[in-house]
């Protein structure tokens, strides 16, 4: 064991940059979107220079979100593909809610992280597609009934995604001490890896040893 380093590089710069561009554009869209949804919160458009400016920022931030969403899919969909052992992990709630034994060892991402990824992709695609549609075409060229569904679906997908983002923020920071550094410096402790992604760690160290 002593031959191993105390810290392990778990994400590369590309992953961290995409993660933060996605997160920043997503949260900024949520912020401006809430300002456009709740008139009582007109402080949001006010500090951004008015409702029209707020609309434009929402749109352009949404473009960044869409691009980063596509890049995330390209980058992480393989790591986030489900495997048979994930069902056992889900049935035991990953050990987060009640004491469990024999949690199936995780490769890089556990079933909860994978589920979050796919909820992000599905909701993100709905939000991006309806948003693009509302911005460029709707409702001047399509029947009003379709246009109405776009506004509804945009808001509905935000409810789901917003709730999951809060879970993601909790589990990525204070809920799992030592995790946040994975998306800041890219380094986590070896013990952290042993706990959260033992199979990936074993693979990683085997590769390191071969070099």
């Amino acid at each position: 064991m002593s031959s191993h380093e105390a810290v392990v590089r778990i994400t590369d710069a590309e992953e961290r940059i995409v993660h933060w561009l996605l997160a920043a554009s997503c949260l900024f869209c949520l912020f401006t979107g809430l300002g456009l949804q709740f008139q009582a919160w007109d402080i949001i458009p006010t500090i951004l220079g008015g409702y029209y400016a707020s609309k434009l920022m929402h749109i352009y931030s949404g473009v960044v979100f869409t691009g980063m969403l596509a890049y995330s899919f390209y980058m992480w969909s393989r790591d986030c593909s489900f495997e048979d052992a994930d069902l056992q992990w889900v049935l035991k709630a990953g050990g987060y809610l009640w004491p469990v034994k024999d949690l199936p060892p995780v490769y890089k991402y556990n079933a909860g992280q994978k589920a979050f990824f796919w909820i992000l992709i599905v909701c993100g695609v709905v939000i991006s597609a309806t948003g693009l549609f509302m911005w460029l075409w709707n409702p001047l060229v399509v029947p009003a009934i379709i246009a109405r569904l776009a506004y509804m679906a945009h808001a509905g997908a935000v409810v789901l995604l917003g709730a999951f983002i809060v879970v993601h923020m909790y589990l990525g920071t204070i809920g799992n001490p030592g995790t946040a550094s994975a998306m800041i410096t890219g380094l986590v402790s070896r013990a952290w890896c042993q706990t959260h992604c033992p199979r990936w760690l074993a693979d990683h160290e085997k590769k390191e040893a071969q070099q």
Partner: protein
Amino acid sequence: MKQEFVKLIDVSRCTACRGCQVACKQWNEMPASRTRQHGTYQNPQDLQWNTWTLIRFQEHVDKSGTLRWLFRKDGCMHCTNAACVKSCPTGALYYTEFGTVAINKEACIGCKACVAACPFDIPRYNEADEKIYKCDLCYTRLQEGQKPSCVLSCPTGALSIGKKEVMIEKAYARVKELGGDANVYGDKFVGSTHVIYVLTEKPEVYDELPSHPAVPFSIILWKNLFKPFTLIGLGAVAGLAGLHYLIKGPHKVHEKNEGGE
């Protein structure tokens, strides 16, 4: 609310002179657009950002096989429960003290949500200034105790405006007088409109006139369910995460493989 006003459109008295169409443009200083001859007197073909009211010319064969014109003055119905006001993110569309729906052009950001939401397909978008336009029932005239310009221009008495109760009573009296399929359109849906028709035919006979208008279900889901649930969802999950932290505590890393680190 001071006093709700209702504009009554008695289509049985309309001769399709289109004085209202012209008066509307004149008072609201809306330019005309170049149009094409489509083989009908209906001109332009539909409501436009600069055409807030339009006489629709419809050829109708009645039950006895007689061909007749049906004239209908189309325009904003000024709903009590207006889908456009509900969907507007900035409050640009608002209810006036007369129960009508006016628009604050400065506040409009051209999101077009109202265009999608309106069950009567009334608001029109102007690409040039990215704003929505529609009839405001001459709000500034009503404030000064004047009739809307369309009502003022009408030579036959097809258009009239007055207190809501009085006008509804007048509409039913006229329907009784006309008999047959004549009916009052507007007082039975979207919380009652502030433009009410006396129709000579059943509503479904008329072009572009919904028989059962309502605030669309998708708009209700959006604004009454998803909108509050955005905050409820964020708040509830944040609360649950907090509870988890207090009860279970953070998920600790196993120390067993640390090898003395």
